[in-house]
């Protein structure tokens, strides 16, 4: 079985929403569409208060290279432009749209169906226009990913269907319900690079998805569906590339350095939607799960829908909810305000009651070394944590704190609940801050 060294095996809890079909969530009256849902320069609003916008119309854009435009996810009127809180805790300008429930599309339907008519540059430009970002959570603009630095030859495209985070079933449902779109998106990418070597990697706890994708790719030349060992963080880019191709992304490098481009299932669908139906990225699949929700669901949600609306649509909270997380439980971000909107990177909304959150209130490291054992990138988290504890940031850097992918395996496995990740992450940010100050 394809795998990598390290990692942990948390209970996946996917049974809760595994068999729940993706349902289209009707958009709310008011949507808050942030100008920054990606890594890079924030967009500038291109519409004015009172203006009527159509579904799929660009409402924010930026001239910066590392940035993608933002689209209206419904048709309606711009009510105001104000600063709002985002799920990642930062503040950003947002265009508030009052929905008129007409869903009047901005663009002609399905005019670019044949991707083979376009050159690689044109395809990349169209991907940018569609506002596609990495939808696994990080939100890195996909068109930047598709433009590797000169001299780097891409020979493999990997579609990441690992979905290793517990509770999440959005990618799984997409693979079962829209396998054609996934394959179409992959074909667009393979065509853009002029190569015939595509992989769809799926963890082997999703047997049905593997079967389905294998069935659908039977007659596709150069596309292989591979089963991966169920292990967290199998869906991390570098680990996935190693598992499938046995190539190691160099320190501080990009997948392009080893000739690989890696995209998420939902990202692949977003690319396919641009070409198939000429639709930009205005929806995303969100798993609503956890013990604190009445009816766990897989929703197709318009970008900009407030969390509270999504939770209400899933029957509301059950019991005494103590924590709400955007994303998976391992790497997701805890929320304190449910008025935040669903953004491009919102793969799940998880609600937990006290039961799941029980954690010993200790902070002890007894140097058992388990964190080093499970670290998928071979760091020594307890060493870095110790160096941070005494304020030796230089040593943290020497020990490779910057290579940390923040997967949380170390904190998950720590018997003393010493939260090594928290310290490594702080060390990492301090190093980056110091660098910025020097520059």
């Amino acid at each position, binding site marked *: 079985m394809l795998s990598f060294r390290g990692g942990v095996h948390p209970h996946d809890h996917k049974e809760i929403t595994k068999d729940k079909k993706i349902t289209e969530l009707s958009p709310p009256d008011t949507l808050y569409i942030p100008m920054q849902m990606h890594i890079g320069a924030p967009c500038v609003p291109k519409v004015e208060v009172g203006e009527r916008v159509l579904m799929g119309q660009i409402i924010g854009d930026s001239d910066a290279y590392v940035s993608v435009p933002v689209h209206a996810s419904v048709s309606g009127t711009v009510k105001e432009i104000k600063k709002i809180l985002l799920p990642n805790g*930062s503040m950003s300008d947002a265009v508030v749209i009052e929905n008129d429930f007409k869903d009047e599309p901005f663009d002609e339907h399905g005019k670019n169906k044949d991707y083979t008519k376009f050159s690689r540059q044109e395809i990349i430009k169209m991907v940018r226009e569609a506002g596609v970002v990495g939808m696994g959570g990080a939100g890195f603009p996909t068109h930047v990913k598709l433009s590797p630095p000169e001299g780097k030859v891409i020979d493999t495209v990997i579609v990441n269907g690992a979905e290793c985070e517990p509770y999440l079933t959005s990618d799984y449902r997409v693979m079962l319900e829209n396998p054609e779109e996934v394959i179409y998106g992959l074909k667009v990418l393979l065509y853009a690079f002029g190569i015939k070597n595509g992989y769809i990697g799926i963890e082997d706890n999703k047997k049905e998805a593997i079967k389905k994708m294998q069935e659908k790719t039977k007659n596709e030349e150069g596309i292989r569906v591979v089963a991966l060992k169920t292990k967290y963080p199998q869906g991390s880019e570098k680990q996935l590339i190693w598992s499938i191709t046995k190539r190691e992304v160099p320190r501080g490098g990009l997948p392009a350095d080893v000739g690989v481009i890696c995209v998420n299932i939902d990202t692949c669908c977003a690319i396919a939607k641009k070409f198939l139906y000429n639709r930009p990225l205005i929806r995303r699949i969100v798993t609503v799960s956890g013990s604190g929700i009445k009816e766990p669901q897989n929703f197709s949600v318009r970008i900009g829908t407030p969390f509270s609306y999504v939770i209400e649509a899933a029957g509301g909270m059950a019991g005494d909810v103590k924590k709400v997380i955007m994303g998976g439980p391992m790497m997701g971000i*805890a929320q*304190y305000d449910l008025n935040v909107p669903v953004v491009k990177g919102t793969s799940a909304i998880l609600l937990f009651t006290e039961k799941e959150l029980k954690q010993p209130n200790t*902070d002890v490291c007894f140097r058992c070394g388990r964190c080093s054992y499970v670290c998928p990138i071979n760091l020594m988290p307890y060493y870095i944590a110790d160096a941070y504890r005494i304020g030796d940031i230089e040593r943290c850097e020497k020990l490779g704190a910057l290579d940390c992918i923040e997967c949380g395996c170390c904190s998950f496995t720590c018997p003393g609940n010493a939260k090594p990740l928290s310290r490594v992450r*702080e060390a990492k940010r301090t190093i980056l801050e110091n660098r910025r100050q020097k520059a």
Partner: protein
Amino acid sequence: MTQSLILALAVSGTGLAFGIILAIAAKIFAVEQDERIDQVIEALPGANCGGCGYSGCAALAEAIVKGEASVNSCPVGGVEVANKIAQIMGVKSEDVIRKRSICRCAGVKDAAFDKYEYTGLQDCVAASRLSGGQKVCQWGCLGLGTCVRACMFGAIQIVDGVAVVDKDKCTACGLCVKACPKSLFALIPYDAEECVLCKNQNKGAEMRNICTAGCIACKICEKACDYDAIHVVDNIAKIDYSKCVKCGECVKKCPKKIIRLI
């Protein structure tokens, strides 16, 4: 007998020879060091706190002798040390105003509202990176003790969720000023008494949902002051200590009781 005598002579002879060589080498390769450096090191407190901005007392001594730093650069030593160093350096000592540090937040647990429950690393820097910390007030003290750990003199304590500086233990080295992610610490003259314990720049009406112990920019203190020493700038009262005469009027009139005598 003779053998041991020869041995003894040989050993002491080699020792003597090496001694002479070393003595000559020391003369030839001698590193000239200003003797005043040692004297200044002697005069400095020797806490190596780094409050002066140099990596320790020795580094500061060197900088003073080289003329890169002024004789009153040591914030810990105060007037006394400055005078001693001035004497060594043969210059007239400039005036040193003894200072102390204060934490400008009065948002104790019951006063300041929280936006979430923080269970992470007990460190203000870590907490402040999670959308500014658990307090609704983005300026407020997080009370996780990063300053307590930074202080070399044990002068800071967290009391009811807010850092409090012990006036007498504080040496104004400034380490807390650097450590606090919220920049809450300020160095004020040692004998100043009135302090504004708030940094919140929100308007008065917004304060209702943030903290009950916050400046509401009502300007009552401004009107109460006969000496033009307190002004509300950016919705926060600021005292000009060069004008303050310690009459205590502002302390009496402040409706939120955040101008205090400490």
